[in-house]
């Protein structure tokens, strides 16, 4: 019996050590790949940097820093579509990062990729990001709940009760609308092909609606064979080869 227990404990210790070693090894690899990517970028070897960062993303997942560096590498390599794709991904993981939004804005501006400026109510909803609207909504919900609980325990003036309740509910409603509207633009795709064209029908010989720039954000509507029907930031619509697109959120 004692011997069996000893074996169990030994097995557990060995497993623990092996797991720790494996995770630390992975951490070392991640760090190494990241450094190698940074060094390659510094040397001006952007293709090598892209290869390192892409390998890191494939192996370990998405990190705002890695995606940002990868996007910078793509931008320096002149691959505007993939640069914008990775900036957009990085921005979704770290919405408040001014470096990411600044570089994205710069790349878009340099490539002449301007989207329509939101007007009216849309402009108001674009004041905050998706996560900020969601957080505002949650805070409004918590405040409303706490106030409801407090109003049971403490006797408050009716006017105060009404004002606070309406205020919280209005805020909750606006935040929900903001979240819903901003979520519509949360899952775009990016045109990654340099010579993509929008077609009126889903076949290659169809008449072209016009060229669509690399790096342009589009929203997928439906698929047909190797083609996808999309609407771009400027509200142009048409069929495009699915291979010319890559989704920001997979």
């Amino acid at each position: 019996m004692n011997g069996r227990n000893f074996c169990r404990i030994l097995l557990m210790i060995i497993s623990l050590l092996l797991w720790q070693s494996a995770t630390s090894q992975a951490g070392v690899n991640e760090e190494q790949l990241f450094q190698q990517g940074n060094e390659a970028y510094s040397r001006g070897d952007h293709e090598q940097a892209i290869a390192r960062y892409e390998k890191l993303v494939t192996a370990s997942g998405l990190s705002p820093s890695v995606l940002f560096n990868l996007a910078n590498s793509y931008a320096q390599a002149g691959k505007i579509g993939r640069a914008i794709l990775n900036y957009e991904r990085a921005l979704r993981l770290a919405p408040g990062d001014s470096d990411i939004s600044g570089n994205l804005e710069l790349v878009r501006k340099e490539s002449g990729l301007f989207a329509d400026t939101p007007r009216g109510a849309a402009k108001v909803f674009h004041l905050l990001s998706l996560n900020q609207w969601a957080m505002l909504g949650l805070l409004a919900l918590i405040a409303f709940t706490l106030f409801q609980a407090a109003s049971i325990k403490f006797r408050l003036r009716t006017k105060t009760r009404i004002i606070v309740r309406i205020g919280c509910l209005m805020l909750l409603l606006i935040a929900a609308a903001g979240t819903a509207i901003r979520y519509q633009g949360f899952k775009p795709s990016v045109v990654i092909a340099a010579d993509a064209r929008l077609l009126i029908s889903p076949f290659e010989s169809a008449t072209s609606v016009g060229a669509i720039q690399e790096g342009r954000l589009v929203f997928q509507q439906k698929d047909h064979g190797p083609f996808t029907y999309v609407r771009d930031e400027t509200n142009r619509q048409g069929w495009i080869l699915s291979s010319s697109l890559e989704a920001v959120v997979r």
Partner: protein
Amino acid sequence: MQHTRKSLILLACLMVFCCGVEAQADITLEASLSHLSFPVDQGALLTITVNGASRISTIELPEIAGINFQNRGQSSRINIINGSMSSSLSNNYLVQAQKPGIYTIPPIKVNAGGETVSTKPMSFEVTGTAKEGAPNGDRTDRSSEEVAFIRIPELADHYPGEIVPIRIKAYFNQKYRADINSLPTLRGDGVVMPQLREKPAQTQEMVNGTPFHVLTWDTTLAGIKAGRHPLTFSMEASLLIPQKRRQVLPFGGGLFDDSAFNDPFFDSVFGGAQRKPIDLVSPEAVFNVIPLPTANQPKNFSGAIGNFTLKVSANRQDLEVGEPLKLSVEIAGSGNFDRVEAPSFPDSPDWKTYTPAATFTDQGNSYTGVKVFDQAIVAKNDTVKEILPLSFSYFDPVKKDYVTISSAPIRIKLTKSTIAPATPSLPPQSAAVPAPSVASPEKTSRGIEQMAPLNVQLGDFQREITPLFLRSWFLTLATLCILVLVALFLLQLRRQNLQKHPEKELQRRKSHLLARDLNLVEQAYASGNSLEFLASSRTAMQNQMGLSWNMAPTAISLTSLKGRLGQDSPLVEIFAAADAAAYGGATLSREKMQNYLKIMKKELEALP
């Protein structure tokens, strides 16, 4: 009433019978040939019409050496004029000859309605083949036009690249059955035509008194080089000639000799049809392409020919220096939109311009519509007051001259940029990371080199991108809040309910108090302590009576109990025993205590 109805039915039957008899009595026969002279490689249509019969038993076609008869089906017609009914049956036969000559069709015997009638003899001439007989082509055209032909409109002089709308019409005689095997194709050099749509418009037209099915394609032609370009349109079709079924009479005639299966209808359905290919060719037309004049050709002419309008608009007019502006240039009208290019923005040190993106929206065809060019432009300094006018030039084929149209300048209000120019600063860790020295591809520009530098902290990894409101902690917190709100709402409802019905609250308090007090009494009973039993019983009674009578429990005495419940109430006895025990220290047996407990439970629960 019933008698009248029977009479009417009998009368109607009699009338129908009389009509039938009358119809049978007037059987007449007509035979006609569509052409009394035709080439040997074609044929004529023989029509045998029997009037006054609803059914034909047999038609005895004569055997003529070198002549074939092919059944082309039967049609029937019924006329009712002023109550008198007449019917006629027509049988059609295609008459073809094996060699030229003059032939006579002898009388054809027709058995209908029990009568045998005969046609008159008919003579006709079969000439040589169409080509032999008409070397100039006139005869060919005329005879083939009886079946199908193509018509195109007259063509005028045009310019290279000019889009010329054209309507191609294919006519098919309704007397014949035909299939089309191909779409019309253009035969000719120096002219191009886009692919035709597979489903043309279908109409019917009368040509020289003959009804034709008409297939219409609307398309365009464009000359690609100057010169005279003769062209024709052709298409392939098949003429379907019905084949006579081979008659199989397994029982040697008799009963099945005149069966319904000998109806010519089955010849067309089951007998099959021979497909005879026919080639439809339109008359030759000349597409004359004349070169565009070189005199007065504007420098910005890109090859656009047609009639266009220009409209320029900006998405904003108040902006800061360095802020992008979207310029929309709309060129609308009709013409060769593939040659319409964006008007070039005038060279100016005040503006930075980007490549425009084009979108064409047609208005039902490829040569009328609107082409919109969206171009991003950025003002470089705040001295700019307006967006410069844009010009577009095209050649008008009607005026036969170049036309240049210009937009009006658009006033704008520019203010100095409030954003400080980006000065990238490397974080301390990245000091060892020099700025990229190798300028990569041609697409990189000075702007991109001003990007914020690399991140040197690896950061946390995530498997997927999930918005905040879909993360588990967010959902848990939101769910918790909602549950708390639901609980608070229910609590509030309960409170309001109790406030509306105070008796329920009183009952609830009484029940709660009774349960607590009886529990103490039971504990005293279990321990066998009669003093404690009686004391707790007294308290229980005082509490219940106090709530019921709205008095302080301590104010309830034996006297008030007697006054309210009466002398005989068992509770008065227990209360008196409790009073006595409190002042005199009396004891109770276990049985007595059990009895008191039972009474007290019953009486107190029954209190109003």
